């Protein structure tokens, strides 16, 4: 049996395509609605990362903020998060935001949502 964590999801239709491979320029973000929640796709110099689109502080939409390096900044109060692991980097945000596994291949960029999100 394959060790690929995405294989199970593929079989159970839990991998969702959120972008084409060359759709999003580096340094930019793009929001996708998946299973009732908004996922923010971030294209950094280190590759693609996906996080919840809502700030853990006051629930502003991070897609209205800005990606700087590997940090996404909230438009409302300037809190920031590391998109690689979701850790809050600056106040007023202190709680992390959720991150999502991505599968990136020639067919596009796919997000894998955990069970409780579906």
């Amino acid at each position, binding site marked *: 049996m394959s060790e690929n964590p995405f294989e199970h999801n593929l079989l159970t239709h839990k991998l969702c395509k959120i972008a084409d491979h060359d759709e999003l320029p580096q340094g930019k973000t793009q929001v996708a609605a998946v299973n009732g929640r908004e996922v923010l796709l971030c294209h950094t110099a280190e590759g693609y990362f996906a996080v919840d689109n809502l700030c853990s502080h006051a629930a502003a939409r991070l897609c209205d903020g*800005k990606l700087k390096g590997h940090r996404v*900044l909230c*438009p*409302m*109060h300037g809190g920031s998060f590391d998109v690689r692991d979701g850790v809050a980097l600056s*106040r007023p945000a202190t709680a992390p935001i959720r991150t999502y596994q991505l599968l990136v291949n020639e067919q596009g960029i796919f997000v894998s949502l955990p069970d409780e999100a579906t």
Partner: protein
Amino acid sequence: MTKTVDPSPGAARASGPSIADTLARDAIAPPAPILQSQYEFLGDDDIPVERYTSHAYMQREMNELWPRVWQWVCREEHIPDVGDTYVYDIGRHSVVVVRSAQDTVQAFHNVCTHRGTRLFEREGCGYSGGFTCPFHGWSWHLDGSIDTIPGRWDFPHATEQTHALRPVRCDTWGGFVFVNLDNAAAPLERQLDVLPQHFAHFPLERRRIKLHVQKRLPANWKAAQEAFMEAYHNFATHDAPNGGNTQYDIFGKFVSRFIHNIGSYSPQSLEDYPGDKWRRPALTEQEQLQMLSVFGLSSDCVPEGDTARNVAAAELRRRLGEALGTDLSGVSECMMLDSIEYHLFPNMFLFPGVNVPMVYRFRPDGDRVDHCLFDLLLLEMLPEGTPHPVPPEPVFLDVDDSYTQVQALGWLAPVYDQDTDNLMLQQKGLSSAAKSGVTLGNYQEARIRRMHMTLNEYITPPESQP
């Protein structure tokens, strides 16, 4: 052969060809400001050691220098869009710069007007639709005016006049954003003095940040920057021949400069240095070209009658011109190769060179008298019409981290490591108080003296304090 020595203080110079002699021999003349030379004897008294070791002196700097002087915060490309911010810390002071409208850059004290909390805890780039205090949630618009005071009913005494964010003076030059905490200070232009004129041929706003390294250094901020204000140490520290005949210029209170040649040197300038190295025999042009192999030159032969300097500059014009998408065919050897270093009081260094394109900043590391922060930027030419790319995040190096961890520094990394080793030894020596003063050369270290003379104009002598 020794030059005739003028007995008046500060008049003596190293023997052999001067920088001006070398530039006159180059195939392409440099821009006019590079050919200017301006020096005057400024005295020869020792500089008191306490300036580098005393917490009391550092407190005077914190109270009387840093809040009253223009200093650069960031580049304009750090804040291209409305809402982009950059937080800058200098000792206990902190300022936030913001692009509050498309054509407006403002600065504020990074402090809540309610109970004094820092609005942003970390230095560096940010983005926000406004400013919010993390303590009680007071918020301000990007122009500093009050947005929200939660429980406003309890603060009838907090008005726009009393509780807007405290503004800090802000101005720009050459793509750099400067601030001055003193609202009564003279305009930035006065401190820049000759710099706009001297950089007219080298527009700094048409440069992009290729690399930003920030390193903690084990020395007082002045000792650290003074190690970069003279090339006298090149022989002993860097095992290099080309510091002896460096040219030093002082353009008023705030601006000074050195020029030292790369790809040529004066063997005679080292005549009383220990040993025969670099002097007997002197390096051939071929050997000097080999020393420039650190630039990745493919040329390895100096044709008869030509110079290493010409060969290296010609190759760099071609190679860097192609890489940068810019025609460098008319750029002088001096601008292509040499280390041309301007200092802007109190702590900024600018290099108008193609192959040596640095910017430095030295400042206290919090309230530590014996450590400082060194920001090192490499600025690369931007081809005409090309917009500024997103600047890279700073790479932080702590005291014990080697610059060689930053591959992009290339040949510069081991040179900077040698400087750091000296700084550690110097700060330790200064702290031992074996001698009450630091002695400076009349010519080669005159820029350091000029810096201290200007510092004197900001710092009240202890005997004058109440």
